[in-house]
């Protein structure tokens, strides 16, 4: 193809370049998938590998944070239960997210939850602290004292106009929500949005002073995770949130920037309490969607499905 003169002609240059690009595109390399905007990454596989893949598909953690920034990871480690109960986030999922944040240049990664049971016991049993021990710059902390919370206003609140949230959230940090998929005796399911209640001080009032589903939607107007990674490697489909309950193994990681979309997809992956349901049927998800906090109809989402 090279001309007699030994110089590449313009035509030849264009053709070879185009061919190269075409071959490259046919191979569908990761960087192109990353660049292509998807709403959700749904990856099936082992917890750590699936999480890494899901992060890659949504464009990498770097897309959601700046170098040197502080990252807060919010897993569910509210109960002193071992991971097999599916009441808490799988430790390997948290490790994979934390590692990705460190690799992307996070100054510090705080893995935080306001636990329901004694902090020390939760940290011990959930296994997340142990799993993160080898990661420098990653701190797993359970906070149970009011001094770590500060009151903020909820301008768009319908049932709540103020709430005390973890002070660390107010410090320009990136929030990555890493909930576990489980049933909940009050809210139907406890996924990403319900998990936000682990970042506030007073949760009791949600259960009797006002409608909890509207309360969660109120909360979602002020606590906005940049990224939600739903750990559905196991799902406790009854007996939640504390268990013991019926544990299914969907083996899925669902990641996305839209918290309502992630949860809505999560509703559809397993039958809850023995019946198939949709995101729209979950009261707090519908409330959040109606406030314009995210898309709820799974059919309208751009979803990348993969297996590792």
């Amino acid at each position, binding site marked *: 193809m090279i001309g007699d003169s030994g110089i590449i002609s313009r035509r030849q240059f264009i053709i070879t370049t185009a061919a190269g690009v075409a071959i490259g595109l046919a191979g569908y390399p990761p960087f192109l998938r990353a660049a292509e905007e998807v709403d959700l990454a749904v990856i099936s596989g082992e917890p750590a590998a699936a999480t890494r893949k899901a992060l890659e598909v949504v464009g990498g953690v770097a897309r959601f944070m700046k170098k040197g920034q502080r990252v807060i990871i919010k897993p569910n480690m509210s109960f002193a239960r071992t991971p097999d109960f599916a009441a808490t986030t799988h430790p390997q999922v948290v490790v994979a997210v934390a590692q990705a944040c460190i690799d992307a240049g996070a100054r510090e990664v705080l893995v935080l939850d306001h636990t329901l049971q004694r902090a020390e016991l939760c940290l011990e049993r959930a296994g997340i602290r142990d799993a993160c021990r080898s990661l420098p710059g990653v701190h797993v902390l359970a906070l149970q004292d009011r001094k770590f919370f500060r009151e903020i206003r909820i301008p768009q609140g319908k049932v709540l106009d103020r709430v005390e949230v973890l002070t660390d959230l107010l410090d320009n940090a990136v929030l990555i929500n890493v909930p576990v998929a489980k049933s909940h005796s*009050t809210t139907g399911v406890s996924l990403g949005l319900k998990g936000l209640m682990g970042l506030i001080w007073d949760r009791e009032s949600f259960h009797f002073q006002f409608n909890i589903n509207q309360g969660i939607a109120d909360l979602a107007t002020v606590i906005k995770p940049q990224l939600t990674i739903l750990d559905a490697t196991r799902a406790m489909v009854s007996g939640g949130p504390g268990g013991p309950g019926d544990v299914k193994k969907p083996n899925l990681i669902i990641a996305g920037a839209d918290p309502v979309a992630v949860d809505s997809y999560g509703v559809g992956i397993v039958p809850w309490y023995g019946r198939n349901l949709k995101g729209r*049927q979950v009261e707090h998800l519908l409330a959040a969607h109606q406030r314009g906090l995210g898309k709820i109809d799974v059919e309208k989402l751009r979803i990348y499905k993969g297996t590792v």
Partner: protein
Amino acid sequence: MRKTVQALSLLLFTAFFALATYRLPDWFPADLYLRIDPLLGLNALLASREMIGRVLWSLILIGATLAVGRFFCAYVCPLGAAIDGFDFLLFRKVGRAVLRTDSTLRRWKYVLLFLFLATAATGVSLVYLMDPIALLTRFYTFFLYPLLITIINLLLDLLRPLFQGLGWATLAHLHYPQPVYYMMAVTLMIFGAVIAFNRLAPRFWCRYLCPLGALLSLISPLGVFRRRVSPECNRCMVCREGCPMGAIGEDPFKTGSADCIQCRECAGICPQKAISFPASFSGVGEYSGPDLSRRGFVYSVGGGLTLGFLSLRTPFTSLQGKRQLIRPPGALPETAFLRTCIRCGECMKSCVTNTLQPSLWESGFSGLWTPKLELRMAACEPNCNVCGKVCPTQAIRSLSMEEKTHAKIGTAVLRKETCLVWAQNKMCLICDEICPYNAIVFRPVEGYRRPVVIASRCNGCGYCEQRCPVRGESAIVVAPDGEIRLAEGSYIREAKKLQLEFKLDPGDDKYLLEESGFKVEQGSKEEKSVPADKPISRKPKGFL
């Protein structure tokens, strides 16, 4: 030398105390000091009329005292060390003459010893009031430990801005849960009195009051090491003035062998270097037993029996088991429990949730300071079995985690008049959410789903009572009804026999649909592909 050993012993006592947490390994005897105390052991054996394995540890101290003498008080006793320490701090410069009533006071400890033992013989455990190890453990639990946590948290708060500035995230978020206890002030006053008495005479407590010292002094004159004064003595009486126990009388050659604690203070201060403590195997020598008259002995035994009568013949005894008192899991049947418990407070110190609290008058005089659960404040943690592990007399049996799960301490009772769901039709499910055993289910009653306790699944942990959002008294209260109290044998077998089931395993259980929190009203949208084996009539809570 002696001071170093004393300080080390106090340190060891403190370390063992600190190690009594829910993380305690099964093999580690965190209650070592309490176990080797022969007075506590003797008291528990007498009062309970049962053989207690851990009490055999006290043979170590009895043997050592028989061989060596009353060295325990000078070298090992942590309360003795604390008394000497405070003496040095507070009363070093105070001139203290020999008390005129010295010889009378000296009898007091024997009076107390026989009084407590006689009380124990009636089945009332009372020696804890004055046993030095139990007394100090209580002081540590109810005062020193909460104080320490307060100070640490204050320091952490003070330094927090610094930690934040340095980016030390873990330290910046560090906070220890503050333990709180009833009877703090009383415990502090008793310890304060023990120290304050030193103003009158050095080691006032040990000389005149300590019943353990009295017990040891009964056998200590048989020991091998005895004070010997050589003829070089010029009767300067420095030793008599310097003896912390006042064991040297008008004649410096003679030693009150019951009172001598072998501290060798006299040998150190003798200007003539005339005093030594050689080993002598010449038999008993001059055994001076307790200088307690027959009359004194009769009085103390009579007093003890009276105390026993007074504490037992009350309505509290008849009402045992009929009061709202939740005992720790594995606690012996109530009567045996009251007899065996030595009120050291070790279980309450180690309790991970702080729910174990000392009783006041809930079960009368014979139940003072015994542990009870304050479930409105904190629950009994399913993953913890430490209270039995640290109990030196096994008034709370040391149980494996599985056994402990089956040692039911009570049953939750719903009070429909105050329950938000039953009384006000509100949407509250906190008790159900927190219950570790799924013992609370929702059932449709009068057109609304309402919580119901499944008694056979409830082991009384109290998470529901603690979390109930109703102000004031909880709308779900754990009552002692259904508690399992076994003196011996397996709780698992007993629970099986009673057809109880406490599930902590995730398992593959399919919980009944009606129990999973479905709303009563039928939904408008019908769902597709319902599994055939699960007939669906209602939707779970939170779904539309």
